[in-house]
């Protein structure tokens, strides 16, 4: 069974090698001229004043947390769907209970405004 993963590994190594070769070839042929202004971060012609890594909106963290919850839930659905042929009604009810709990959480997040962006 594990032999099926050997081509996956080879593909990974070949694509890393491909990216590195492209980089090396380009660095060998491309010109390099130093200029202080050119090396500044791009800011539409204005000189950058502060470090760019500043605080950003808390919404992004919220989206990340919601993502973790929902994606883990979906991962649970995958094996359930594979053996659905054997489980039938039992599997359906089990999954409805599982999804039901999640939908309650989803409705709660919606009402609390976690899904709003503005």
């Amino acid at each position, binding site marked *: 069974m594990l032999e099926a993963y050997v081509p996956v590994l080879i593909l990974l190594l070949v694509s890393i090698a491909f990216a590195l070769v492209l980089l090396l070839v380009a660095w060998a042929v491309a010109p390099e001229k130093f200029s202080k202004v050119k090396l500044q*971060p*791009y800011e*539409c012609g204005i000189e950058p004043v502060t470090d760019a890594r500043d605080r950003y909106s808390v919404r992004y963290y919220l989206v*990340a947390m919601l993502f973790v919850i929902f994606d883990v839930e979906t991962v649970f659905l995958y094996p359930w769907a594979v053996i659905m042929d054997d489980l039938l009604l039992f599997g359906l009810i089990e999954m409805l209970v599982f999804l039901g709990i999640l939908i309650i959480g989803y409705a709660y997040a919606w009402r609390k405004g976690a*899904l709003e*962006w503005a």
Partner: protein
Amino acid sequence: MVDLIVVPLLKIVVLIVAVLTAVAYMVLLERKVQAWVQVRLGPMRVGPHGVLQPVADVLKLLIKEDITPSRVDRWVFTLAPIIVLVCAFWVFAVIPVGPTVELFGREVSLQLTDLNVGLLYVVSIASLGIYGTILAGWSSNSKYPLLGSLRASAQLVSYEVAVTMTLVTIILLTGSLSFNRIVEVQRDMGVWFAFLQPVAFFIYFVGGLAETNRAPFDLPEAEQELVAGFHTEYSGIRFALFFLAEYTNMIVVSAVAVTVFFGGWLAPFPNVGWLSWLGYIPGWMWFVIKVFGVLYAFLWVRATFPRYRYDQLMRLGWKVLIPLAIANVIVTAAVKVWWLS
């Protein structure tokens, strides 16, 4: 030894060359289609009707200066495009391009490897690429790239849920995650899943547009707001790697769409008598035709729709597509239980 290393290696070389060619001509096709939609001619100078334009583009990107701005984190700045590109290529390992064929007296399957977790593999590897985007924005240490990468990650993550969820219906129909099996089931049932699961296809297509940062969801690189998004500071070959990865990702999304929803390498209308000659066209050619069909839809959408606003984008993802995907899974499961009992 030959079967384990040499054959896969040869397949990989063919695969990468094919993907690079497809990307090159995809870029030309995009410019041409955009031009035709806007009643222009598009690239015409390099070669007849601009067919050599991709070659000129590649040469230009290779010999341009590759600037490393003074404030960036050098190693991560170089690592980011490599991660994005490698993840884009890596997905192709499980996509079946055609049925098993006989080549030089040897049975060769036109799929790198038939993993029994194929669909899960694609979903997980495809979302790994976002690490490259985040690292690119962070290591650039410049405001526009940082904003672009934040937007890109939040957007990808939001649509990822709906897409992953909607693919569950396909597993319900096939009872397997293997791509080969998914195509075989479509052949045996005599119907493509796009017609059996139109809602799932719709969610997948919209999610695919959003995950590849295509218009109308191209907010991470909205030119009017963010210059070029997360690759603002990139130039030369490292920019080329991002560019290549972006178009490779579009091909990946189309290839998965074709395999899962449009019968992969199957010829259409196998049951219509006077169209039986369609079956003589080899499977891999059907695959390529279908992939370019889906890619054309991507371009068509880009030329037609205006860009979403960010809160609209998030609302569509979280409040429309996710409930729709959950409902679709429940309905499909219920119909399946009812059908089997």
